[in-house]
């Protein structure tokens, strides 16, 4: 595998990656799709080819929309490297890929990163207790193994996914006892300006209304929640929350937290792509040109990994990045690329309509992004927010310098779970914008691989000779 050069390596098998790989392969390019999961679909269409959830109504029509993407990908002739981790991309566009405990370099002429989204951390006190998970994790269990929770389930946070999971659970026969909605009341006023555009995107409205109505019929919803504590000794027992100055407590066996999704930028950061702070989506986004090319030569980034836009937008962004790759590799002229991109660009505009309204409406409150003193910020190293603030007081200006003091960000997750929390907590403590504070310098491998696996990588002659000391 190492010595062969392929045209395009697409990393990630969600809607953006599937569409990008299919478009590249259809254009006649040798294309590999490298994906960590066993079957195509990414998170949104997870297990779409093999989910045990047979009743199509449970996961809903939006989920099954992924079938067409998967079918087009499978017809396209792109090679599918499943259960494969792309853990680095060198400046020469060698993609380090781990499959079945062995790693190889796959040399590509272009790389399209479609790494998708991650759930934004929601670091409330007690969120590390057994019995507390994310809504996304709950959804993964449902899609891939049909698992629904038993006992008393509480959903808390903000954003459409909260209500979607409640609806999916109910259709699957599980009951959600309570939804604690933390959407700040002030958001609606801020979002109002973009309401007309949102209304034009009729599908959102219909979907959103349907979800809300169906939730309201069967679940108690508490709005305006401004603090949440997961309580219990060694196991979640109850959820304490505050609403309009009133302290309440409910017993719970499972608490599912969620406050939106953010781009998964660990790979694009690790390979040196420039990123900027997005003040509206409150996250880091890669700096891209009009064709989704990043600041590292030969690398494009498509889908939610390039800024949250949702599944429909992701597929179109995958197609657009792929068409430009085809132009770079000489199989399409500039005019052909532009012509073929017209359809996807129009579809992208439609898919993005109403996005700003949603971003502003569901922007999570500062108090849920910048945690209380006693809440864990970094799960790997068990660092609480107070320690971060103490470090700032010592004169430590950013997340990288803080590593030496608290080790936060140095665990196996490499900041995937704590990066935004740490950056925003430092920024708040210093009274500056998150963009000024910066993010962890992410280092490959972006997910752990064994030393034995690295030892078996191909070696250079020079490296072998240099071993003999002196």
């Amino acid at each position, binding site marked *: 595998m190492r010595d062969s050069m392929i045209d395009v390596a697409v990393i990630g098998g969600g809607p953006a990656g599937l569409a990008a790989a299919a478009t590249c392969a259809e254009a006649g390019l040798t294309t590999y799709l490298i994906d960590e999961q066993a079957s195509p679909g990414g998170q949104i269409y997870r297990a779409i080819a093999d989910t045990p959830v047979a009743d199509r109504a449970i996961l809903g029509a939006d989920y099954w929309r992924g079938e067409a993407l998967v079918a087009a990908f499978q017809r396209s002739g792109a090679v599918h490297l499943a259960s494969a981790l792309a853990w680095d991309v060198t400046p020469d566009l060698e993609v380090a890929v781990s499959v079945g405990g062995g790693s190889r370099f796959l040399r590509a002429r272009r790389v399209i990163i479609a790494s998708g989204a991650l759930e934004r951390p929601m670091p409330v006190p007690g969120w590390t207790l057994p019995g507390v998970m994310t809504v996304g994790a709950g959804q993964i269990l449902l899609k891939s193994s049909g698992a629904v929770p038993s006992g008393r389930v509480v959903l808390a946070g903000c954003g459409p996914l909260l209500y979607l999971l409640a609806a999916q659970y109910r259709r699957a026969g599980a009951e959600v006892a309570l939804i604690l909605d933390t959407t700040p009341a002030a958001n609606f006023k801020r979002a109002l300006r973009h309401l007309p555009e949102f209304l034009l995107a009729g599908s959102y409205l219909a979907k959103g209304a349907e979800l809300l109505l169906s939730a309201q019929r069967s679940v108690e919803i508490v709005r305006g929640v401004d603090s949440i504590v997961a309580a219990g000794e060694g196991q979640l027992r109850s959820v304490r929350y505050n609403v309009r100055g009133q302290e309440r407590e409910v017993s719970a066996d499972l608490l599912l937290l969620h406050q939106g999704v953010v781009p998964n930028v660990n790979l694009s950061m690790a390979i040196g792509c420039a990123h900027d702070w997005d003040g509206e989506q409150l996250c880091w986004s890669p700096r891209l040109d009009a064709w989704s090319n990043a600041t590292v030569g030969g690398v494009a980034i498509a889908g939610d990994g390039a800024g949250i836009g949702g599944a429909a937008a992701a597929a179109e962004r995958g197609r657009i990045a792929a068409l430009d790759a085809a132009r770079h590799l000489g199989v399409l002229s500039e005019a052909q690329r532009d012509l073929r991109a017209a359809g996807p660009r129009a579809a992208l505009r439609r898919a993005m309509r109403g996005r700003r309204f949603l971003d502003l409406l569901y922007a999570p409150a500062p108090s849920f992004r910048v945690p209380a003193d006693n809440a864990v910020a970094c799960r790997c190293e068990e660092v609480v927010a107070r320690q971060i603030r103490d470090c700032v007081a010592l004169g430590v200006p950013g997340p990288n310098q803080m590593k030496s*003091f608290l080790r936060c960000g140095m665990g196996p997750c*490499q900041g995937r779970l704590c990066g935004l929390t740490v950056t925003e907590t430092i920024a708040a403590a210093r009274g500056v914008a998150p963009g000024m504070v910066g993010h962890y310098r992410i280092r490959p*491998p972006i997910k752990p691989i064994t*030393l034995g696996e*690295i030892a078996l*990588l191909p070696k*250079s002659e020079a*490296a072998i000779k240099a*071993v003999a000391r002196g």
Partner: protein
Amino acid sequence: MTVADAVIIGGGIQGCSAALHLARLGAKAVVLEMAHAGRHASGVNAGGVRTLGRHMAEVPLAVAALEAWHRIGDLVDDDCGFESVGQVMVAETDAELTRMRSRAEDLSHAGFLHEEPIDSADLRRLVPAVADHCVGGLVARRDGAANPFRATLAFKRKAESLGARVREGVRALGIERVPGGWEVDTDDGRIAAPAVINAAGAWADRFAAQMGDPVPLQAIAPMLMVTAPMPRFVEPVVIGGGRTLSFKQFRNGTVLVGGGHRGRADRASQRTVLDWRELSVNAESACALFPIMRTARVVRAWAGIEGRMPDDIPVIGPSGRQDGAFHAFGFSAHGFQLAPIVGAVIADLVTSGRSRLPIEPFRIGRFRAAAG
């Protein structure tokens, strides 16, 4: 125009240590650091506090520095994470062991007793997890390791508390000879001082040339890897006798694997690129000496940007051509341990013109023929 007793270019641990020792002697220095103190080699190295296996010319400095590390709290009001866990050099063959024994003998003839040869049984007592084929080695029992960024910051903070100024985010652009001393132009104004100290690490050759001392410095990017926590299996820092390997397990169980294998350094962007084909050799060495490491999960690899001299020993001392100009750079990936003593030597030179320890082998003039 700012006026100071000395301008130090480079806020790494050498520059901060020089500022600290100058302040102790009553001289107020301004340190110019283009990024933040400890951003490059000083902050991201393996933190080895090692006298073991040093170049003979470095031994007197390393031995003096080790004494300072054992009392580091007295110097900088912080323990810098220093732990005297010892360092062990492993011999994998009888030939390597013979070489180590004769080295220890040479050292003892010169009056240095810090390196002791050990046999196979001793080695296994010190390092039970070592591979079966290893036959013995050398140990420096008072060596150890510290936290490099924390240490650099401690030197910086102590220097500041004694009156030095560390200006982070300020880049030195050029040095000019003026009557009575030097003027350093920066992107935030000019500074005048009777003495200028070049501690600019991988960027030091540019300033050396401006001081009339061109040198063949190479910017290198030594790489390190760290693993997820493992059950505790090794106490001392371990280095290879026949392989370039350095190996340390921290208190939290994570293991640092290094050995000077190099990635690519880009001085302009201040970024490094890893070379996995080199790291693979490093990984193979670690697995060969410690079979338990095969299943260790590597969570991160990185590199620092460091200045290397052709003979792999640093430049320490006065300029060969100009008064009031001094160098401390080119530590060739093993300068961290020396910092407490290098700062003291530089402060001696600036204030009295004499060094307390022999630094002749580190004179900058040794490259004159080569660099022209």
